């Protein structure tokens, strides 16, 4: 899922300080699961913002909505009827959701309430970590299911480097060396000799961000 984190309240207040009526829009997708922008977080942020305004003698009306998803047009349409009654939208969906909201409601300013961090997993309750950089050309079959692009600090295709010590990365000892993980896993699978000994050739990065913004079109699904 996409992992996000709420922006510091001070930063959010600074963005919306001149408004009196706003929509605070959450999303029931990824950001709800990582507790950054779901229904619960909408309630908490709205309450905190109201108090922040009230203590300065200002009033703010916050319409709390949580859409099924903000990255699909049909759900964004659900608020079309009320958008014109408000001065701005504060979205706490991921960066994609916030942008799509802005794209659909061109006359209303849309502000981000979260920082979108990465594509990752829930390691434990309250702990998330990165797993995919969406490079567009998956090589997990060559690396024992562990992504060196994401998890190696240098994104090395043939590792480890000399900075790997006791299975940890030189960038930060709290980071596992991805290549140590890959080697351990390949050995466990019994495919170390077969897979690791092959040099992985240069990667074609044109499928990643280097090729510009990406797009997928599927004729079989188009209406």
């Amino acid at each position, binding site marked *: 899922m996409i992992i996000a984190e709420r922006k510091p309240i001070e930063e959010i207040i600074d963005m919306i300080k001149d408004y009196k009526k706003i929509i605070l829009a959450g999303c029931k997708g990824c950001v709800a699961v990582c507790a950054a922008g779901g229904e*619960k977080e909408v309630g908490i942020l709205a*309450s*905190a913002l109201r*108090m922040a305004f*009230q*203590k300065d*003698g200002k009033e703010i009306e916050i319409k709390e909505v949580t859409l099924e998803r903000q990255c699909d047009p049909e759900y964004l349409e659900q608020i079309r009827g009320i958008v014109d009654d408000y001065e701005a939208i504060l979205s706490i969906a991921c960066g994609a959701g916030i942008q799509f909201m802005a794209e659909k409601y061109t006359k209303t300013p849309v502000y981000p309430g979260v920082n979108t961090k990465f594509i990752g997993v829930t390691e434990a309750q309250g702990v998330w970590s990165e797993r995919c950089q969406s490079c567009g050309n998956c090589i997990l079959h060559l690396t024992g299911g562990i992504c060196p692009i994401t998890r190696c600090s240098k994104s090395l295709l043939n590792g480890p480097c000399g900075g790997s010590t006791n299975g940890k990365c030189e960038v930060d000892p709290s980071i596992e060396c991805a290549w140590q993980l890959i080697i351990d896993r390949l050995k466990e699978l019994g495919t170390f000799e077969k897979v690791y000994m092959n040099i992985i050739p240069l990667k074609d990065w044109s499928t990643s961000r280097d090729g510009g913004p990406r797009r997928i079109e599927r004729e079989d699904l188009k209406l």
Partner: protein
Amino acid sequence: MRLDYPSNVKIIKLPCTGKVDVIHILKAFESGIDGVYVAGCLEGECHFLIGNLRARKRVEYVKGLLGSIGINPERVEMYNLSAAMGTRFAEIAYEMTEKIKKLGPSPIKTKKGKEYPIKE
């Protein structure tokens, strides 16, 4: 025991402090309450194992949130005591009431702006 405690303390009963969520405490402050304290069981003695430990973490989270919007985080506290500690219960009620009295009414009511961080 016939102990008395300040009449301004309003008790909201819950099956376990583990039920206390961030939004519950925030709603109390939003409605103009000057201070909130959560009274949970002694640590290690929760009937549901870690309900009181969870409550403490949520109280800490609310403290951070209040501080970031200019409200003194000391307006919210977590206490641990057992159901048999009546004297301590009254003591805490007095202690918290005194502390809140010193801090004065909540800026959400007075609309006087930031009270935190405290200017020296």
